[in-house]
């Protein structure tokens, strides 16, 4: 059976329960039922249907929990929303999940910090563009952060990545080194590998492919290429940086 699709969502939900009161199992079940029954029209972030934002915690037609549950189960036939084959309990769990997402969105909106000041830190004192790219600016050697604010990473996780980059390295952002026949060591971000070959973006931003059998040596870099900013930025600057990163939602605003 297919399990990966839901894993990321469930893991995300799992990391946040310390901050919210909903029973974890209800929200996890709700996330699962949401993906199976609702996401195809409402989208993964609840905002695909025009004029409807399920993450806002506000609903146009209804206000009580039982009314929302009723709409999920019965649909709104004249507006094109079909009924879903859900029990009342399942619909209640979806609602718990929607409430959880709404609370999380509200919490992020209330965070201290100023995105404009964060951008100044990012581009100035932090020198983050030396490795990272946002939109059309910065280096491609490190992870592109253009849509980091859409990647469902919590403020706490982003802060940890700034202060302790080794704590959690995204598997998609791993670096490797290779030593070809000429003995010159090359480091790069691993883009792909298989039994016979590996593909990297090297430190000069070149896309390169190597046959493993022709390398003298290759391995993963065991620690992050990113320096820790612990003690290098003030707590206010870190807070600004975090809200700036959360504001980066991709190439379309």
């Amino acid at each position, binding site marked *: 059976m297919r399990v990966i699709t839901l894993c990321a969502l469930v893991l995300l939900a799992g990391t946040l329960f310390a901050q919210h009161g909903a029973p974890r199992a209800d929200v996890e079940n709700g996330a699962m039922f949401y993906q199976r029954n609702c996401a195809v029209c409402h989208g993964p972030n609840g905002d695909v249907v025009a004029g409807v934002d399920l993450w806002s915690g506000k609903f146009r037609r209804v206000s009580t929990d039982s009314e929302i549950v009723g709409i999920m189960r019965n649909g709104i036939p004249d507006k094109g929303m079909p009924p879903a084959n859900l029990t009342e309990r399942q619909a209640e769990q979806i609602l718990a999940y929607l409430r959880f997402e709404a609370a999380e969105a509200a919490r992020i909106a209330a965070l201290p910090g100023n995105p404009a000041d964060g951008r100044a830190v990012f581009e100035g004192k932090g020198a983050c563009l030396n490795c990272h790219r946002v939109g059309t600016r910065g280096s491609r050697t490190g992870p592109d952060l253009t849509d980091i604010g859409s990647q469902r990473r919590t403020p706490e996780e982003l802060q940890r990545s700034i202060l302790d980059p080794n704590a959690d390295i995204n*598997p*998609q952002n791993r670096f490797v080194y290779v030593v070809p026949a000429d003995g010159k060591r090359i480091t790069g971000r691993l883009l792909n*590998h298989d*039994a016979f070959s590996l*593909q990297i973006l090297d430190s000069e931003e070149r896309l390169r492919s190597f046959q493993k059998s022709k390398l003298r040596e290759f391995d993963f870099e065991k620690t992050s290429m990113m320096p820790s900013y612990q003690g290098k930025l003030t707590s206010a600057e870190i807070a600004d940086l975090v809200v700036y990163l959360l504001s980066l939602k991709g190439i379309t605003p």
Partner: protein
Amino acid sequence: MNVRILLSSLLLAGSLAAQVPFDRILRADREPHNWLTYSGTYKSQRYSTLDQITRDNVKNLELQWVFQAQYLDPYEPTPLVVDGVMYTMQGNDAVALDAATGRVYWMYRYTPSPDARLCCGRISRGLAILDGTLFMATVDAHLVAVDAKTGRPLWDVKVARAEAGYSITHAPLVIKDKVLVGSTGGEYGIRGFLAAYDAKTGKEAWRFNTVPGPGEAGHETWGGDSWKTGGGSIWVTGSYDPETNLTLWGVGNPGPDWNGDVRPGDNLYTCSVIALDADTGKLKWHYQFNPHNEFDWDAVQVPVLVDMDWQGQPRKLMLWANRNGFYYVLDRTTGEFLLGKNFVKQNWNVGFDEKGRPMMAPNTKSTYEGTLIFPGNQGGTNWYSPSYSPRTGLFYLSAWENTSSIFAKRDQEYVEGQFYGSGQPRSPHPRGIGMGMPRLAQPPNTRMDEENFSAVRALDPRTGERKWEFKMSNATDSGILTTATDVLFSGGREGYFYALDARNGELLWKVNLGGIVAMGPMTYAAEGKQYVAVNAGNSLFVFALRDE
């Protein structure tokens, strides 16, 4: 190809004109230019005596033709070949092609009901043939007979209710005058079965319930009404032993998958191999690999039947590498447990009792918080066809190493037709570096071996000891083919199709086909030329030696 085989193939082709009586399937090993049943022969060894492609010349393989299926789910059928005609599938369409050129003779298009529900894709793994009739099972749980010459349907029977989660994804198995099929749906609270249909009329001949009801032996292993939604799916083709007239099949997970509290007991015959009388469907013996399983470990592997010496005595054996990470040897006449040895990292089993019942390690129950188990939900292997070579005497399997899942149960009520898992296995690796189901578009692979990897592994069938392995950096859903020239063919999710030396695992040849291989490669001959066929992505690729 040697002269004898060439002559016999020409004679058969001329005299029988694509009529495939049961006797030909029974002796399929005598006509290696053909591939008459899902696993090649009833013994399911996926070993071919064709010898034109050798360890020395396999490097000269070149592409002969491609069939591009108009179909986007995982592409898993093993083709059949009968006297120069190939029969394969495109979803639930049956296709006849010229095996030498790939030109299509006919295509029978079947549109499954939108009621069909599948956990893991609208998959079909192949056809069966008897006389001049093909048999196709469908994802909406029908069995359809199709004229092999014209592609016209002859009969169409409803095997089970698609709206309740029943569907058929495996290739049917023909035995004598019957066609055998079971149903998938282990994630929908089905009650599983294996059924036999009269090949001429489509009339049901017998049905064996893999989850016994009141009055049936084994019913006492289900608490309360849990048997009604007990799972026990069948989704990979079984084997047949003509000497005992037993047909052997693997049975899937109990339902719901990840919460055993609601189904107290051993939950027979889930996670078991069952041996049934092929004429009556009566159970002769069974062996349960995992009583009361909570990890989705379908025992749907292909039973590999081998006659060889066991501790100095000739014995009729069944070899089986299970999703639970253990390699087993059973006596296939009696079901006696002879050996169980893990072939990948595992932490659930601390041994077997004298009857072969596994002893569970402490703290290996699914919990609300989650329990870390090796191997993971997808297992140490799965439905990928293994191979046994009588020449090397080795057993070959596709293994997933270092995989694990955190099994977390939940409370869930059963609603007909809805996903019924009562839990969620999680990857212990954050952000999706675990190994899951096959995907059409794989994300870039950046995994490390310590997280997981896959391999073709060769085992000594008498001990389960590993003789060699060929490692891949990503998962594999590929089966394995071996030949009389000690060439082994396989593939994987990296998109390669490759040949190894079956004696030592040395790489002999590879080609990047750019799509996952999720089926068992097969070989055949047409007009005296040996071909190897493999699906990758959504196409069938056929190779042969370059003309000199």
